[in-house]
């Protein structure tokens, strides 16, 4: 197989993989609606709306052990 053919196969594989990954991600977002921390994705809009330094973070970073 020539390098050009290899490139072409690689290209098709990458394209299919990325397309499937993107649609899987869409499916995941809209069926699960919450991320692994249990936050609804839409809550994250509050990161912009409640952004004073004294506001409570939407998902607090765990303190260092």
């Amino acid at each position, binding site marked *: 197989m020539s390098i050009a053919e290899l490139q072409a196969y690689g290209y098709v594989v990458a394209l299919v993989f990325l397309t499937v990954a993107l649609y899987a991600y869409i499916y995941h*977002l809209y069926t699960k609606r919450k991320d692994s921390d249990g936050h609804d994705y*839409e809550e*994250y809009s509050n990161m912009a709306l409640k*952004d004073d330094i*004294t506001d409570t*973070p939407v998902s*607090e970073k765990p303190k260092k052990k």
Partner: protein
Amino acid sequence: MEDRPLEYDYSVTRLFMMNTIFVGIVGMLVGVILAWQMAYPELNTFLGEGLAEYTNFSRLRVLHTDSVIYGFVLSAVWASWYYIGQRVLKVSMAESRTLMILGKLHFWIYFAASAIIVVSLLMGITTSKEYAEFEWPLDLGITIIWLLWGAGIAGLIAIRREKTLYISIWYFIATFLAVAMLHLFNNLEIPTYFGSGGIGAWYHSVSMYAGTNDALVQWWFGHNAVAFVLTTPIIAMIYYFLPKESGQAIYSYKLSLLAFWGLMFVYLWAGGHHLLYSTVPDWVQTMGSVFSVILILPSWGSAINMLLTMKGEWQQVAASPLIKFMIMGSTFYMFSTLEGPIQAIKSVNAIAHFTDWIIGHVHDGALGWVGFMVVAAIYHMAPRLFNREIYSKSLMAAQFWIQTLGIVLYFTSMWIAGITQGMMWRAHDEFGNLAYSFIDTVEVLHPYFTIRAVGGTLYLIGFIMFAYNIYKTTSAREVEASELQNASPMGA
């Protein structure tokens, strides 16, 4: 000192903001001069024959493109980063001495490099790669500036209180990574003096690529420079400033994530549309066209998300000139991301390429989308930086309408000029002889060039009104923190 409550530190934002306004005026003034020169070529020597070398179109054109893109836009992006970054990560720069030092170094090295760039471009020192005109010593300087920014991003993220990164932060990170990669690969070059054992100027270099490869790398760079300097960081800005100013949550946060990954996936493949009908392989051209058309989807995903954020709140658009800038900005974003894919279709590009239609496309994006978002971002930040209300709402509204008129004159004249040009260049008689010579097109285009120059001048006038408004804001009525929650306070 110890007992003062913790506050966000905007000193670096302030520096970049001042620079945005200053370079914006200079860069657009040069644009306006260029526009008048195209309509009235005598203006190439407007400072006399003796200085013609420095005032002619070709010398000034690079100064325009580089100063507006890397001076005006990048400064605004960084002003916004140093503002938004702290706020959505809920951490102050003042909490880390290192971050403060990095931020200040970032600004001052950038400022010094910009000054050198202006001088070197005026002297005619360039590598002649569009948007990457800088010679190797400056390329090294740019790398340092970029790494300083990267270190600042990483540092701020490391000490954040908010675990999840807000969508704007993703766009900033994408900007950082993509431009770093583009800059490095497109500027691989050999300093001729050192490579040849002492021939030529010490600062001169030649690209490591040649011929078609050079063209490919150059437009992979050029296209993505547009994508990652004039698009992704601007989306980062609108995702913060529009919800914040209007007090509305983003219409769909999920859609914002989706549009982000879609954009990242598609953008990098579309560069081929700058090289249609050239010597690059056919499949690269076709791929460039196809991906350009697909690019509508993630682009509109973000833009529609912004428009829908105002759902049920359109009275705010009517009432606030600041929100008008952002809504008009995302509308122009939709507009130029519809126009771009159309121009990327091969048969359309056959007419559009090399013509003023492309210049029209560039500026409905640059003036309508990028310029308006920069203006809106600074109007939103200024009251919070100075704890004062915006000096004048009516001045802001006047600016909005003057600039909008300017943009409309700019792109409509360029459409007509471009399509006229494209058609005249192709026209031929029954034997295949060209129907027109080049000068015939120039004569026909004269009125449109004049209209464009008027439009550009209006835009510049609006921008100077903006600078004045911000300047007066620094001494306007002081406001309480409670007035700064959402809608920015404005004087009459």
